[in-house]
């Protein structure tokens, strides 16, 4: 039953929710996305959620580990404890992917978009305040 639930969750994550075609003021059809782009993006989402859950615990245990005051035996035990936590709970595994294309590289942090999508939108005047550079 637990496996069924997890499967359902996975299904729910990628569940298709068809929506009406959104039209902006010019009548052009905007992109209506109801899926995550791919499974890698879904896994990234799961890692982010888990990292958020275990954030406090990891912080505290790391505070115990990374000091010179407490005895080393305690620090060794803390090392083992943090290693026992689930692997997806560490924030290091999070990759800032492009939000629209799930591209892992070439992503500008401010806009969360890959360079290609950014350039596409900027050329079509969808990014407010972005101009082509000329000097």
């Amino acid at each position: 039953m637990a496996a069924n639930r997890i499967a359902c969750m996975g299904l729910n994550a990628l569940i298709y929710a068809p929506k009406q075609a959104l039209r902006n003021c010019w009548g052009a059809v905007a992109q209506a996305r109801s899926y995550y782009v791919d499974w890698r993006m879904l896994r990234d989402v799961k890692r982010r959620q888990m990292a958020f859950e275990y954030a406090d615990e990891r912080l505290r245990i790391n505070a115990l580990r990374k000091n010179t005051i407490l005895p080393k035996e305690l620090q060794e035990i803390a090392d083992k404890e943090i290693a026992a936590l689930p692997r997806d709970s560490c924030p290091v595994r999070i990759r800032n992917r492009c939000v629209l294309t799930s591209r892992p590289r070439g992503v500008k942090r401010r806009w969360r978009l890959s360079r290609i999508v950014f350039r596409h939108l900027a050329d079509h005047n969808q990014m407010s305040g972005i101009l082509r550079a000329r000097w």
Partner: protein
Amino acid sequence: MHRLLSRTVSAARTRSLCVYECCVLPAKIDNVSRPFTGVGANTICTCTVRRCEKKDDAIPSNQGEATNLDTETKTTQLQEESLEANDGGSTQQQRNVKAEQVLSKPSQVKTDGAKSGKKSLLDLLGAMKVEVTSKRKLKNLKMKQSFESAVQYKSKSAAMESTISMFQKANVQASAQSEVLDPDLVAAASAAASTLLNRSRAESELLKQLRQRKALTEAQKKGDINNLGVLIADMKVGKTPGRQNAWPADQIRFDDDGQGYTRDRGITSELANVRKRRNIFPTKRLNIFSPTTDEQRGDSALAKPTLWDLDFANELSLTTNQMPRNGFEEMIQWTKEGKLWHYPINNEIGLEDEASVPFNEHIFLEKHLEEGFPRQGPVRHFMELVVAGLSRNPYLTVQQKKEHISWFRDYFHQREAVLNEADVYLN
């Protein structure tokens, strides 16, 4: 005890096929003013009234209180009227004959019959309303009735038997063939046949059917099924009505030009076909399957949500969600969901309650270190550093800071043994 006339109003569509017979219930008359009362106070009068549909209103309703003579005359009148209304002289003659016979019988019955508050065979037969759609159907009905009546009134008084014996004398010719049969059955058959049109023929057929059935039951009792072929060979083949114009349903008909066409049908034809079969649901249950209980179904449904449940929930959410008509509504929806920041940007969004908390609770956290922690040693040193860091953190609430400190307290208490080995003592 008076019994009223009962009428059946016919709703027949075709007069030729449907003949509705209405029978007058016999009226018991206490005081009889007749010259030939020799037997007893109570007398019986049976009369059958036959009429067409158009005669329903003409005939008077209540004859219960009339005397025998009056009833007789009235019945003769009625019958004459009905006869006049009917078509065909031959039928009239037949009916006259039958009427006379019918009337003669009751008179004979009056002479002999001594009833003490119980119905006679004839009364029961006469009282029953018969709907005739086809001869065969009538025969079957009459068979049933005669059987029932015969079974019921098998054990009767001597007076009953006398009437039956009288009937037997009257129908010597018919009963000669059926000596094997029960005299009660014979009497019932003859009485039933008397209500029909073609009396003699109907009676002979009835008796023949009775004989067949008796032979069949005897064969079944003996367990000898081999003779079934003999029995079946004697039986008539039944024919369903309406077999004259029996085209197949999908018969292709041809126009003059040679192109064939089938009748264009929709769903209605299927429904009509379904309705053509007389009864889809038989009257009697076969009891092959036991009715299932719904308890088992209910538990399993609640246990785990199936894919169908998920699909339904999804569809429900889609139907209830009103799509945003424009970008503004979309942004509003996202803001409500939490995907979009609130504008103008508020850094302390979600932390409105914290504004009421005074600053000293954020900064002076050493009071939480008074209990559960030692006053000296590396643990205390560590916790003071923790408190110093928390006091400088503007992004956490007081509750979160307290939770941090309490977590450390629990952690150190759990690992007290390890700390004691390292000569760090928690007092």
